[in-house]
């Protein structure tokens, strides 16, 4: 099963839920936790361990200026404005390139080939028995979050149980992380902001055909509006985590709720069982 942890709003506790869920499930079998919040991955802070790392690249065109006739076909073809053909040279903006390879196909002179360009790093570690952590990190200044996320998910492709921590929001990086998942957990908080952004996230999950359930985090017990929205939209509340100084203190020192207060493991295991029911798969 591939399970995504998402939210509309940032700071609702996605990583906290993902980390505690993975920690709990690692006692029962093999779990892979994938940090797809590639602009600010931080799951490794919950699970410090030596990691092996490799570069993530994307193919970009390289033009042989001797062979190039400056016919302009590649520049006309490129919908992203990455190639501009002048009478005497070609300008290439790699940050606009989407690696579609079209310029290479339309070049009548075979003047274009592709070379890899680094956009980020992928690291893999085994912080505890049963747990594999995969983290994608986008290079500073690179706009290409999506291929980094794709690569991080690919690394977990053959693993039996995968938990994917997504970026906040509802844009391309979230869509890429959610795509192909069997179910998703939407973490929210009972504020007007949490509810507003939850509505957006529910819409994204529905459009992608990923069954969703809700975790209410930092609940002060006044969750009526969120509960009403969930009832109206046929969304199950999977677990509710209370607003608590004790939980906040554990979280704030980078520890795991389920490690410090093992009684929480049964709540996170029930979260897993409900997700499995949502997904309609065995494990």
């Amino acid at each position, binding site marked *: 099963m591939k399970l995504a942890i998402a939210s509309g709003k940032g700071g609702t506790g996605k990583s906290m839920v993902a980390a505690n869920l993975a920690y709990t499930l690692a006692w029962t079998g093999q779990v892979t936790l994938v940090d797809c919040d590639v602009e600010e991955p931080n799951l490794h802070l919950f699970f410090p361990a030596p990691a092996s790392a490799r570069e993530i690249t994307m193919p970009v065109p390289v033009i042989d200026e001797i062979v190039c006739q400056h016919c302009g076909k590649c520049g006309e073809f*490129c*919908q*992203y*404005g990455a190639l*501009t053909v*002048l009478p005497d*040279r070609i*300008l290439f*903006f790699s940050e*606009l390139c989407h690696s579609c390879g079209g310029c290479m196909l339309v070049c009548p002179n075979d003047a274009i080939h592709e070379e890899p360009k680094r956009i980020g790093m992928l690291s893999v570690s085994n912080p505890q028995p049963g747990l594999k952590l995969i983290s994608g990190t986008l290079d500073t200044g690179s706009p290409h979050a999506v291929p980094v996320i794709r690569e991080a998910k690919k690394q977990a492709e053959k693993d039996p149980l995968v938990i994917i921590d997504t970026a906040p929001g509802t844009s391309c990086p979230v869509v890429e992380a959610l795509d192909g998942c069997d179910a998703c957990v939407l973490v929210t908080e009972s504020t007007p902001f949490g509810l507003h952004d939850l509505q957006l996230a529910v819409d994204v999950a529905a459009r992608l055909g990923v069954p969703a359930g809700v975790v209410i985090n930092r609940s002060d017990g006044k969750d009526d509006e969120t509960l009403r929205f969930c009832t109206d939209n046929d969304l199950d509340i999977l677990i509710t985590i209370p607003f608590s100084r004790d939980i906040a203190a554990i979280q704030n020192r980078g520890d795991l709720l389920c490690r410090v207060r093992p009684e929480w493991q049964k709540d996170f295991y029930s979260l897993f069982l409900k997700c499995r029911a949502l997904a309609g798969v065995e494990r």
Partner: protein
Amino acid sequence: MKICFTAKGTTLDAQTEERFGRAPYFILVESETGSFEAIQNPFADGGGGVGPKAAQVLIANHVRALVSGQVGGNAREVLAAAGIVMYTYRDGGTVRDAFDQFSKKTLEQSA
């Protein structure tokens, strides 16, 4: 020589547009005769990379100078490479106002 003004409309009385890549229209004025033509910018509502694409429109139309409010880094690089001189006009007047200032050489060159 041909000068391009970024504009919100299709005539010399149209208000100038501060943005380059997302300007709705390019007004191309022949500086010697004052005759002009308006081109709709096909990239005004584009998703991304509109700067270099819009710059290509100017190159294809043999423009020698651009008068606009703000030109992004990528577009600037393309325009500079093509030898198109960039001038800044941000007073919010009409294309005619901007052209007057250009003719009086009171506009500042921006690159």
